[in-house]
């Protein structure tokens, strides 16, 4: 279902063509990161730290170097030591330990050999002497007085202090008079919450092949959300010139934020440089879970004040994120994610605290789900206390254009109210709650980002077009690019070939993250097409023998008075004689990414003898601005929701006291399977973003923000117990029921 504000009639935008890269993917031809082999290629393997925190006293690689098949060994000593303050210093240390291993699974050395088995055997033969250091595993441990340092390198960002600290960021936000508001409140609810480490869980493990030639140039084939970032990070970590490195984007098998940074490429590059051979490294699932970016665990305390008629007058709270072994902006970014309600009085503090666990990475609306879980739970409890409909309460307080965001500055036009109304009016919400079940509501949003993108549009001799961008396609964005180009040029979407090109074949483009590809790269495509249309009109004027001003572009053809319309193919056929190839490149730094709000509704049943929660029905309404390809907008909404349901119910990292992850497999790290979920009904709300030519808002992030509170609110209404700890796994739910 789609709820749309008034907008122009589009011919292509909003249709659902088969995606251009789809055929290769259903016949098994699409080449993902691990699917390519270079001639003469070696295989890389790692030695990883078995300790949560340990000084590396000595590494002896002698035995490994003479083992069968071994061609190269690298350790931290082979990497340049980047100065403190270089933003990629932590990236480099995270992918190869230097003075100390900072978490179990931290890479200490790497080997390239003829076969993977040989490389693994040799890596295991490397001897490392460690001095064990105290391990910091939780926010409480990290922030305790006199706590040992998880990473002595760390300084608190934006603090002005140069003292080592376990705090990555401390971000206060304040407005109004919170104390007075609580004093005057009719209702106050205060709760503490915690959430576990969770992983993005993309099905494709990280992989790359790197071939460094005798001229020192590196040819990189990698799976990433941003191959330009792979290039810049690899160059920074190795202190190489960027121009030495070419990165070709493989098809990417899921990222969700986890493939916005690198783990392998510089190691493979050094192994290749040393051995003179291409080196392929493919992570195992175990390695992915142990040593690539999970989302931070969190702990929070939230207190909200309200009047009897449901006005939320103040929020006061603290949210801490366990960010892992190096500085991370999770706490800082989390601070920005509290901006759904007007709250005239607000006093919040957000903290990122270091732990001896893997460096956390972005995961879909990074830091927002943890905050939304806490805040949306307390708001629901206020609705219960006031005996008010949870949607009515939210409608009363929802931000609209001009209301302040958490960081200051007014919201642009946003669609929160429209999403609340969409759920309120939905068949799901209006239906009676099934016998034995209960219903929950939750909301969330993400600001989204713009950033830099480039696009080249080539018109071919026969009137077809090639749209070349630098945005890896992680969820169908090629189809969106082609749809926008079809709309602009007026040709059939399947006469357009969208291509994601390597770093040497298209202009610089930032990472596919923050729901920016269809928004920002789409804008670059539109700009290029618009410039091409101007050129087409000029060429048509030449061909038709009319003045340049006399030509209009209508539905894929040049139209001039008293002339037959000249279709695009008629112009491209005469390109040579009218000035040469028709090609335009557009680049931009896009501003004005519009926030996307979502409202979720679910029905659950709780087995009160086992604590198992079953999700019976789920509906999501989300503001897409304009859905370029509605199927993939729905897909983003459904996928984010499913990940959120996993986060809510069963996903968690289980660590022992030394920081060893005990459940590093898809057997025991329990992402939802098909039989765990119902259909996920979608309502696309379209409140166009005024800053995009078609009104696009990014849609990828927001879907994961509301589910945890949505389910917790339903469970609370089903059982009378407020679940405040994620995941709401059966043992925890049963224990909570026992305390009832």
């Amino acid at each position, binding site marked *: 279902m789609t709820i749309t504000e008034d907008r122009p009639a589009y011919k292509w935008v909003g249709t659902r063509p088969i995606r251009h890269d789809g055929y290769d993917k259903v016949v098994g031809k699409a080449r993902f990161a691990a699917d390519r082999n270079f001639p003469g290629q070696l295989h890389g393997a790692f030695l990883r730290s078995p300790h949560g925190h340990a000084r590396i006293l000595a590494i002896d690689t002698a035995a490994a170097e003479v083992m069968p098949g071994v061609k190269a060994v690298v350790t931290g000593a082979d990497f340049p030591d980047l100065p403190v303050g270089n933003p990629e210093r932590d990236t480099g240390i995270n992918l190869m330990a230097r003075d100390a291993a900072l978490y179990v699974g931290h890479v200490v050395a790497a080997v390239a050999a003829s076969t993977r088995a040989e490389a693994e055997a040799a890596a295991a033969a490397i001897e490392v002497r460690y001095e064990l250091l105290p391990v910091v595993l939780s926010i409480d441990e990290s922030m305790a007085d006199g706590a040992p340092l998880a990473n002595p390198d760390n300084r608190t960002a934006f603090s002005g202090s140069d003292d080592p600290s376990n705090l990555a960021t401390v971000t206060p936000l304040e407005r109004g008079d919170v104390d007075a508001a609580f004093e005057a409140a009719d209702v106050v609810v205060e709760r503490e919450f915690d959430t576990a480490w969770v992983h993005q869980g993309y099905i494709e493990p990280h992989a790359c092949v790197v071939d460094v030639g005798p001229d020192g140039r590196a040819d990189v084939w990698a799976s990433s959300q941003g191959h330009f970032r792979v290039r810049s990070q690899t160059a920074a970590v190795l202190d190489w010139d960027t121009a030495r490195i070419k990165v070709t984007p493989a098809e990417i098998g899921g990222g969700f934020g986890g493939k916005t940074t690198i783990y392998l490429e510089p190691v493979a590059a050094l192994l290749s440089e040393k051995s003179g051979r291409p080196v392929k490294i493919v992570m195992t699932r*175990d390695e992915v879970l142990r040593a690539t970016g999970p989302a931070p665990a969190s702990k929070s305390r939230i207190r909200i004040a309200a009047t009897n008629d449901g006005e939320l007058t103040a929020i006061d709270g603290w949210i801490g994120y366990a960010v892992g072994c190096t500085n991370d902006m999770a706490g800082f970014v989390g601070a920005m994610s509290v901006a759904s309600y007007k709250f005239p009085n607000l006093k919040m503090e957000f903290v990122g605290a270091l732990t001896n666990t893997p460096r956390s990475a972005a995961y879909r609306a990074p830091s927002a789900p943890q905050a939304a879980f806490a805040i949306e739970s307390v708001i629901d409890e206020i609705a219960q206390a006031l005996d008010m409909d949870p949607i009515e309460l939210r409608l009363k307080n929802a931000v609209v254009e001009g209301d302040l965001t958490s960081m200051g500055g007014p919201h642009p036009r946003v669609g929160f109210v429209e999403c609340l109304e969409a759920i309120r009016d939905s068949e799901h919400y209006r239906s009676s709650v099934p016998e034995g079940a209960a219903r929950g509501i939750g909301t969330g949003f993400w600001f989204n980002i713009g950033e830099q993108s480039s696009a080249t549009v080539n018109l071919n001799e026969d009137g077809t077009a090639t749209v070349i961008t630098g945005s890896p396609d992680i969820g169908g964005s090629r189809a969106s690019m082609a749809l926008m180009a079809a709309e602009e040029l007026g040709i059939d979407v399947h006469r357009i070939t969208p291509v994601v090109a390597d770093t040497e074949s298209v202009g610089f483009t930032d990472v596919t993250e923050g729901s920016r590809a269809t928004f920002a790269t789409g804008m670059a495509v539109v700009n290029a097409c618009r410039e091409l249309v101007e050129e087409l009109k000029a060429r048509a004027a030449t061909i038709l023998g009319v003045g340049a001003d006399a030509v209009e572009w209508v539905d894929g053809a040049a139209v001039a008075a008293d002339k037959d319309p000249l279709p695009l193919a008629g112009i491209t056929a005469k390109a040579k004689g009218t000035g040469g190839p028709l090609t335009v490149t557009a680049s931009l730094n896009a501003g004005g990414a519009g926030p996307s709000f979502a409202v979720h509704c679910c029905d659950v049943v709780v087995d009160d003898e*086992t604590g*198992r929660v079953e999700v019976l029905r789920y509906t999501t309404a989300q503001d897409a601005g304009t859905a370029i390809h509605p199927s993939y907008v729905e897909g983003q909404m459904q996928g984010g929701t499913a990940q959120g349901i996993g986060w809510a*119910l*069963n996903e968690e990292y289980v660590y022992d006291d030394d920081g060893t992850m005990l459940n590093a497999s898809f*057997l*025991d790290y*329990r992402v939802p399977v098909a039989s*765990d979920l119902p259909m996920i009904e979608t309502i696309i709300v379209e409140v166009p973003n005024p800053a995009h030519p078609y009104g696009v808002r990014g849609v990828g992030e927001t879907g994961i923000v509301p589910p945890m509170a949505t389910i917790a609110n339903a469970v609370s209404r089903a059982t009378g117990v407020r679940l405040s700890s994620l995941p709401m796994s059966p043992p925890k739910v049963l224990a909570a029921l026992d305390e009832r």
Partner: protein
Amino acid sequence: MRYAAPATVEEAQALLADDADAQVFAGATDLVPQMRAGRPAPSLLVDLKRIDRLTSVTHEDGRWTIGAATPTADLTRNEAFTAAFPGLSEGAGLIGSDQIQNRSSLGGNLANASPAADSVPALIANDGQAVIATADGTRTVPAAEVATGPGHTSLADGEFIVEFTLADPPAGTGDAYLRMIPRTEMDIAIVGAAVRVTVDGDTISDATVVLGAVAPTAVVVPDAAAALVGASVAGGTLDDSATAALAEAAEAACDPIDDKRGTIAYRRRVAGVLARRAAAIAVERARNGA
């Protein structure tokens, strides 16, 4: 690492006799993950699936013989087998995904000696007997005596399970297996409970209760069975005092551990719950079959 696929039990015995480091396998659904987790690779992999006797299912003279390497999918699809042992068929059918079902087997599930093995409680509840190939012949022991602790069995080096035998259940018998997992599929049981009852008129005349994942091996719980024997099932349901006693006995029999999959307290509690629920299903089946 070498691979061999003997065609007869005797060939397999000879291979194992020649190589103390050899490892038999059927589905390898546990072996491969264990090797990836660091278990040393054996020098010789002996694939038992090419031995006809190990993959055949027969029913003769009131006795079922089930090849130890028979894919569990073949058991769940076998209507006569499933009608005779619905609980065992259910347990066997819960081992992993459909993909795994085409590889997993009763023999592998038992010999892997995980306390959480889904087919084992109902196999024991139905008094399954394991026929074991020894160095020079075979011996037969109750299935309950094969696993001795997590990852440990009573099988000597070179021994492997050839087949299981099960007697046709007496008239008025029903069995059931339930397990608790956080998801709906693809998990290892946190608790499993198999119950078999025989009903005579309106009274339970015989019962067996076996719990999984709550002790180092699957455990037979005589006290729980005793709570059922003699109980009335008039009207189709067990009376409350019997179910309460059953649950209490099941909880008392637990000797669980805290681990990544569940806590001691949770396992104990849910063992009682599942025993009760499985008993109710078994009773219903017994009455329908009677």
